[in-house]
């Protein structure tokens, strides 16, 4: 965590409820200007809901019951829907997992990018198209003039994600939220999109909150990582510190389950025993307790707070001191 700079985006105690269960439970993290924060976790751990909640775009079934999202000095959760609309796309943008489905199939990409610019800027159509053309060049799309007049179905997934990024960034927001932006793409295209995002951070100073389940993506792009498990942050740390010295059993086991190049052929990959608890199984204690080799009675009864381990590294575990045992299990 970059403690020197004051955070640009500050999420505090964000809690989202679906049908009475806290699917996002007290999530807090800060993102400094020009930094990349990764939210990592398995499917259903609440990372995508967290990202939607940042823009006030939760699905109908979900409801934010507590917490604040501060962008600089403004609390986005205190804004009316009307004020929030002015912030969306202009101050904070989001791109989604399925780039081709995120574009209107019946409208040319040029019209969609230009419309995104016109939503927040009172300019003529031709000015908006000029901006769109410039934006396509910025996200590395060759021959922008031709692309502007094409429809989403004429473009590849990677190309569509570049279009989505240009729509998201055309009004120069300070924060870009990227919900699994590379999951639906081929591996080579993934790398290109990540490179593009890194370049954007460097050139424009845009902060990024990237949601992923892919540790490779985290290692590639993130400055800080928050590992989420069953709606809560298990561990949050600068990326190097997290990979080198995980302070939460879940993170350690998760890292151990990533296949390695030197993994012996025809042997089982490492897995974490058990499964993620369902909403109705959320107990009072640590939600990872049932699968954790270090779990004690206390873990099942009392929820661990995020303990500060120094250097911006924090972990929600009662047994941080016993982490060497995990390393033996994981190895």
């Amino acid at each position: 965590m970059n403690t020197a700079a004051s955070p640009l985006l500050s999420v505090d105690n964000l809690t989202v409820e679906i049908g009475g269960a806290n699917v996002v439970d007290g999530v807090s993290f800060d993102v400094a200007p020009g930094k990349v924060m990764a939210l990592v976790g398995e499917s259903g751990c609440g990372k995508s809901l967290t990202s939607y909640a940042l823009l006030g775009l939760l699905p109908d079934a979900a409801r934010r019951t507590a917490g604040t999202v501060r962008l600089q000095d403004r609390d986005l959760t205190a804004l009316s829907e009307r004020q929030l609309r002015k912030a969306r796309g202009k101050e904070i943008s989001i791109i989604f997992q399925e780039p081709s489905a995120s574009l209107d199939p019946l409208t040319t990409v040029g019209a969609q990018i230009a419309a995104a610019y016109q939503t927040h800027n009172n300019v003529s159509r031709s000015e908006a198209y000029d901006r769109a053309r410039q934006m396509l060049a910025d996200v590395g799309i060759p021959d922008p003039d031709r692309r502007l007049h094409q429809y989403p179905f004429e473009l590849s997934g990677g190309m569509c994600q570049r279009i989505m990024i240009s729509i998201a960034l055309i009004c120069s927001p300070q924060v870009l939220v990227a919900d699994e932006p590379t999951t639906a793409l081929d591996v080579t295209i993934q790398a290109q999109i990540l490179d593009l995002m890194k370049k954007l951070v460097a050139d424009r100073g845009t902060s990024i909150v990237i949601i992923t389940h892919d540790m490779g993506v985290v290692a590639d792009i993130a400055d800080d990582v928050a590992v989420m498990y069953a709606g809560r942050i298990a561990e949050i740390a600068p990326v190097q510190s997290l990979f080198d010295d995980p302070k939460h059993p879940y993170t350690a086991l998760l890292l151990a389950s990533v296949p390695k190049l030197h993994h012996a052929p025809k042997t089982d990959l490492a897995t974490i025993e058990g499964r993620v608890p369902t909403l109705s199984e959320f107990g009072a204690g640590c939600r990872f307790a049932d699968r954790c080799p270090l779990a004690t009675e206390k873990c099942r009864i009392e929820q661990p707070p995020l303990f500060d381990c120094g250097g911006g590294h924090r972990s929600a575990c009662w047994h941080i001191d016993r982490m060497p045992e995990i390393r033996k299990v994981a190895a």
Partner: protein
Amino acid sequence: MINYAVQRFIQAIIAIVGVLTIVFVVMHLSGDPTLLLVPQDASAEMIAELRSQLGFDRPIYVQYLDYIYGLTHLDFGMSVVQRVPALDIVASRLPYTIQLAAGALLVAIGVGIPAGIIMATMRGSVIERILTAIVVTGQSVPTFLSGILLIFVFGVTLRWLPTSGAGELSAMIMPSIALGALSMSTFARMTRIAIIDELSKDYVRAGRARGLSLGQVVFRHVLRNASIPVITIAALEIGNLLAGAVIIETVFAWPGIGQLAIQSIQSRDFLVVQVIVLLISFVYVLTSVLADLVYVFVDPRIRLVR
């Protein structure tokens, strides 16, 4: 694109010939019109002579081929009852049916589509429930019953509207509503489903993420996407309206081709019935071809791939 148009044209011809053949056979199985044309006390020779004069003594396949041969020369035959070209009789009634169908279509689309949009976007509201009730009523009350109910309430009891005939514009109101009600419900339901389906798509969320309100997303993106299935329905409904006119025109004594069809079937006036059937099937085929052309206009995926 050209290939596609040619293909559609050939399909259309086959469909029309198929319908025509079935109607031809069924009409001839229903009996010989000669008996209805001769006086009660006609002798067997007189009947036989008239029959041979009209050509009904020939084998059915000869009559059929003769009829088809006539069609290829745009000869639709003579009405056996009135002894004038069948096409002329139908043509004289057609404007009334077009007028009625247009009125009904106006009711169906003008009420159905906005109702569908409201039902999809204001789910759970009071107005949605009211509209649902109206749509279910329109869908479940049979046309002949709704026609008679309308006549009873607005024609007989309140005396606001004429009960029959095709004189002034006010005479069109009740038949248009009665004929359009079922279509209106179909449009409302289809529009609602199409919009709800579109609202669940990712681009709606993406549109809101760029700062558009839900209403803006609906008007800029959703309606156009949802229009594709509705266009299909529109094409079918226009044909259905013509078919429904048979009942409504009878109920309201409306002098269109629907009433003519009933009269001609009763008098076994084959050739007039066949012209009407040809016309209705031609309209079905034409509207579905038109719908395909509209798709091409609305959806670039069809336009550019084909």
